[in-house]
């Protein structure tokens, strides 16, 4: 009996010491613990997409993206582009050094551009028009393009500078799993990834050219599901949460309101949370009036209220959210079932066989496939709403849930979709010619598979135009075109809701592209514990 008691006590002590050890994480001075459900699995920024999301912590870029999608200098303190628009000259900062103390030079930048183009498939698209990059002197980089590319800086904003002396020896970067693979010049130095505990640990770079961050240690804690992560937030085991290009599901927010020590950062999302994309190559979605009819059938107010818990607004037909530079006020989207029905009637989509559903003008049955991503909960809920709305005007809808792998095959590769609910990210909005064009243009990602001559004309002009006043006119024209043609209908313009523990941290800053893990946070944040 006594033996049993002793064994029980030992076991309990082990458990408690384990618990205590667990709580120790994050108690050291000026530490921020961030919970995430991003499935990070390896410490290589190229091999693991989600670890790559964290690369800005370790490595700087030439330029960065800030408020309103504006480009700001980062490692490049200035730049100029020649009259031809084909040659870009970047002047680097004097005082940027890698974590090991070595100087970051133009050689590193030129090497990075050439290396990424050659070795990393994604960058072949990002840097597609780069002919060559060369170091003119220690601080000057010259990049030559094959043709003018006004949006070149946007693509440079996802290119982090690598130390040449490390990577020039690496023939297969996707297989490079070494601490050196994380060597950069950024505000944090990667320390370790404890895969069992799901902890990624970074320490502050005291020699960072912007100064030492306000945080000594940064810990990411990986969770397998949202519920456990939220419990950790409420318990104070983590200080805030992070997922690339989104906050928390707004439906959860009411449950968190009023909870002790939980505060929120609420900012406009420069991506479109959810939009209804038409495959404009397929009949009947290639008919503008058909798309317009659908726009009148949708209950935007309900989506704002029930999907976004009020953290959104009814969007304009011009697609591009308000926070963007060169935003233009276009027509607000509205529900009008009478208009929707009369347009569909006038196009000949009537109920021929009196079964309650509209048919094609030749009286064959019409059934529309509505696809949506199952990995985004809001999209799944929204699909039910949209289905119900469209059925009210007699359009028969078949839901097509797609996991992310199937979604990408259907939309990104095969283009076999009909209508789809999906989001755009902020960076995605800026790719190709900017302002969402990449998602529309059949020559790029092109979910809307748009190939109208009118659209191409605006996009091509935008790709070539570098003068701000001319760009503004083109961007306005583009938004008018979006509003008129409705290649895609934004379902609501949402806000990013970012919860955090106000008893632990204060003054987190939300960068429109990188969220709370942008550089701005590390120099403003106050760690209270």
């Amino acid at each position, binding site marked *: 009996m006594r033996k049993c008691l002793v064994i029980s006590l030992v076991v309990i002590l*082990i*458990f*408690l*010491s*384990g*618990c205590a*050890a*667990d709580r120790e994480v994050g108690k050291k001075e000026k530490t921020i613990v961030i919970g995430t459900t991003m*499935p990070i*699995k*390896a410490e*290589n920024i190229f*091999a693991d*997409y989600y670890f*790559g999301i964290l690369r800005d912590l370790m490595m700087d870029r030439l330029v960065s993206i800030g408020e309103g999608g504006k480009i700001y200098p980062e490692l490049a303190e200035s730049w100029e582009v020649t009259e031809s628009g084909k040659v870009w000259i970047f002047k680097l900062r004097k005082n940027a050094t890698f974590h090991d103390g070595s100087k970051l030079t133009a050689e590193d930048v030129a090497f990075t551009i050439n290396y990424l183009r050659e070795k990393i*498939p*994604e960058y*072949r*698209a990002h840097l597609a028009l780069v002919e060559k990059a060369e170091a003119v002197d220690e601080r000057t980089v010259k990049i030559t393009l094959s043709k003018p590319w006004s949006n070149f800086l946007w693509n440079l904003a996802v290119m982090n500078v690598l130390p040449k002396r490390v990577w020039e020896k690496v023939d297969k970067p*996707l*297989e490079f*799993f070494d601490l050196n693979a994380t060597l950069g010049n950024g505000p944090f130095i990667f320390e370790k990834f*404890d*895969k*069992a*505990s*799901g*902890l990624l640990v970074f320490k502050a770079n005291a020699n960072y050219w912007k100064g030492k961050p306000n945080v000594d240690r940064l810990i990411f804690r*990986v*969770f*397998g*599901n949202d*519920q*456990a992560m939220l*419990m*950790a937030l*409420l*318990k104070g*085991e983590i200080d805030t949460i992070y997922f690339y290009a989104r906050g928390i599901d707004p439906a959860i927010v009411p449950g968190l309101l009023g909870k002790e020590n939980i505060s929120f950062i609420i900012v406009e999302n420069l991506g479109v949370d959810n939009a209804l994309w038409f495959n404009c190559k397929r009949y009947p979605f290639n008919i503008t009036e058909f798309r317009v009819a659908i726009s009148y059938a949708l209950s935007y107010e309900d989506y704002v209220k029930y999907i976004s818990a009020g953290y959104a607004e009814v969007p304009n037909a011009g697609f591009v959210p308000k926070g963007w530079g060169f935003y233009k006020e276009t027509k607000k989207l509205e529900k009008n079932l009478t208009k929707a029905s009369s347009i569909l009637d006038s196009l000949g989509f009537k109920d021929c066989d009196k079964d309650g559903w509209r048919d094609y003008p030749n009286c064959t049955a019409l059934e529309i496939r509505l696809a949506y991503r199952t990995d985004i909960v809001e999209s799944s809920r929204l699909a039910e709403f949209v289905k119900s709305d469209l059925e009210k005007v007699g359009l028969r809808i078949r839901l097509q849930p*797609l*996991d*992310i*792998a*199937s979604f*990408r*095959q*259907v939309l*990104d*590769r095969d283009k076999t979709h009909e209508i789809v609910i999906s989001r755009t*990210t902020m*960076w*995605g909005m800026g*790719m*190709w010619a900017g302002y969402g064009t*990449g998602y529309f243009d059949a020559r*790029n*990602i092109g979910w809307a598979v748009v190939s109208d001559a009118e659209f191409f004309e605006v996009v091509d002009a935008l790709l070539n135009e570098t003068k701000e006043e001319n760009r503004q006119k083109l961007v306005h024209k583009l938004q008018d075109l979006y509003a008129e043609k409705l290649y895609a209908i934004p379902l609501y313009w949402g806000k990013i809701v970012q919860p955090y523990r106000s008893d632990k941290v204060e003054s987190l800053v939300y960068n429109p592209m990188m969220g709370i893990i942008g550089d701005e946070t590390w120099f403003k944040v106050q760690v209270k514990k």
Partner: protein
Amino acid sequence: MVQGSSEKVTVFFRYFLTFFLVVTLNFVIPRAMPGDPVVNLFGEEAYLHPEILQEIRKEFGLDKPLIEQYFLYIENLFTGNFGYSFSFHKPVLEVISEYMWRTILLTLPSTVVGVLFGVYVGSLIAWKKKQVEVVLMIVVYSIPVYWLGIIFLYFFSYKAGIFPLGGAISSFEDVNKLILPSTTIVLHLIAINALMSRAIVSGTMNESFIVTAIAKGLKGETVLRRHVIRASLAPIIAMSAIEFGFAFSGSILVEIVFSYPGIGLLIWEAVRVRDYPILQAIFILVAIIVISANAIADLISKAIDPRLRS
């Protein structure tokens, strides 16, 4: 003698055929799923240039005709080469071995306890004709394992703060991380094994030799131990063998709830990005374990039950 040899050949052939079918299905099923593994190597905002996709497809051998890929897969299998993971960019065995030990640590003890305790409880319930316990087992079995895990997390981690909210064991200090996921698995296994054992034991209790044993005046416990359990052991062992087989892969939901990076989470991730080589290797290992466990169960059953030898 000759008859015995031919029986062994038949048994061997049966296991070989099972393995061959499993290996083939293992190749076919991941490829039948919609979703292109190459597309999933890129970030969400990447423009997928067809030429680049084709180059990567070639690099991974996915451009070859399916039948050629199949024979290559079989050839590699027999040389112990499980291939290269598309998403981890490492040899598959290296990836699996990293995740496997965590799952073994979690599921093996849980399965042993769950199966043994479940069989014991089920036999007692059948013998004593308990009804309340049957209802209790049905209730436990009916609760989805995911939900049971969330309830445990809520009460024992979030409310009581006794256990951590997730993660796997990386040192002896972390042993408490195993308690909640193990308990979830054990409870689920106890319920299912108890219900199945109860059904088997109840069937045995209706046999005439049990009535004879009771009529001879043997004590209840002696009848249970010497006659009922012994006669029920063969089907119970066969049932348990399957549980052990799935101990390796059957903990997906538990691992997701408890953020436990084991084989379950690896399967989940491999399905998400359509990493065929990882999926193939895991399911082959599962098949080997299930088939081996069944073969061992067959041998044990024959050793303890003379009826199966005749």
